[in-house]
């Protein structure tokens, strides 16, 4: 099914947000996840299903400044 990840259309297998992160080799501690403009609590990543047409944002920490 097709979803949007960080603004780009992508073909993904179904499952939960956590499944998607695992498939992409992303440590869930490294990202904040937004699903259709709402934050997904880290505890809920494994129980939140990804559906056709969903818009996901994987937001990585961006640290420096000095």
């Amino acid at each position, binding site marked *: 099914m097709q979803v949007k990840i*960080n*603004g780009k259309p992508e073909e993904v297998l179904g499952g939960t947000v956590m499944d998607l992160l695992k498939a992409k080799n992303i*440590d869930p*501690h*490294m990202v*904040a996840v*937004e699903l259709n*403009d*709402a*934050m997904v*609590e*880290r505890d809920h990543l494994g129980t939140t299903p990804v559906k056709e047409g969903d818009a996901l*944002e994987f*937001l*990585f*920490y*961006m*640290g*420096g*400044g*000095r």
Partner: protein
Amino acid sequence: MDFTDEQVTRYSRHILLPEVGGKGQKKIAKAKILIVGAGGLGSPAAFYLAAAGVGTIGLIDSDAVDLSNLQRQIIHYTPDVGRSKVLSAKEKIQALNPDVQVVMHEERFVAGNALKLIVGYDVVIDGVDNFPAKFLINDACVLGGKPLVHGGILRFDGRVTTILPKKSACYRCVFKQPPPSGLVASCQEAGVIGALAGVIGTLQATEALKIVLGIGRPLTDRLLDYDAKKATFREIKTKRNPHCPVCGEHPTITTLIDHEQEACELKQVKVEA
């Protein structure tokens, strides 16, 4: 407060703007802006705010200038290596614009002094290099009710967002807590393209001036991510999170805490439950 002829000339390109005018320039002259970190982001922000005629600029930094800073921290010059960053920055600001009063806070921004440091200012600019300090600045500004312009840079990527406490999403609405130790590289470890600091720090200065002037649409409830390699900006919508530990409906952070991590070093991080 009236401007001298010299000041009218100095600020003429602002005064010409209908959104600024003499009235707006007076607001700028009365504004007090605190820059936490006189480094990569703080340098361009301080320069542009000084040039703009911001009445008071506060600078917080406890470090001395290092040779490796000069690739991006443009307020410090080669002869400043080894000197206090806040003093070095103050000299450049005053050489650029003697109208600006510079308040030097040569100390670290920690839970114990954070609220006291921000209290006298109208806007706070985050120019620090580590997550514990970024989270602390966010928490202090939320608890202290101060508008905050957040910025972050790493490698070729940068991010800016404006936080109006309890009105728009804060940093913790998106990122609940600092990343676990060792997982996220620092600039020191990963590198950063110097000019990126100029892009992001200058956006922060622009946002701060918009807040002071009360014009335009602030960069709230949005993260503005800049990818220097692709030369693209992307906006990510955010919103206040009812579960936010500091500005949510049932906050768990009601006093300031220091997350333990030294600047640009990745040691063990204590993350609150």
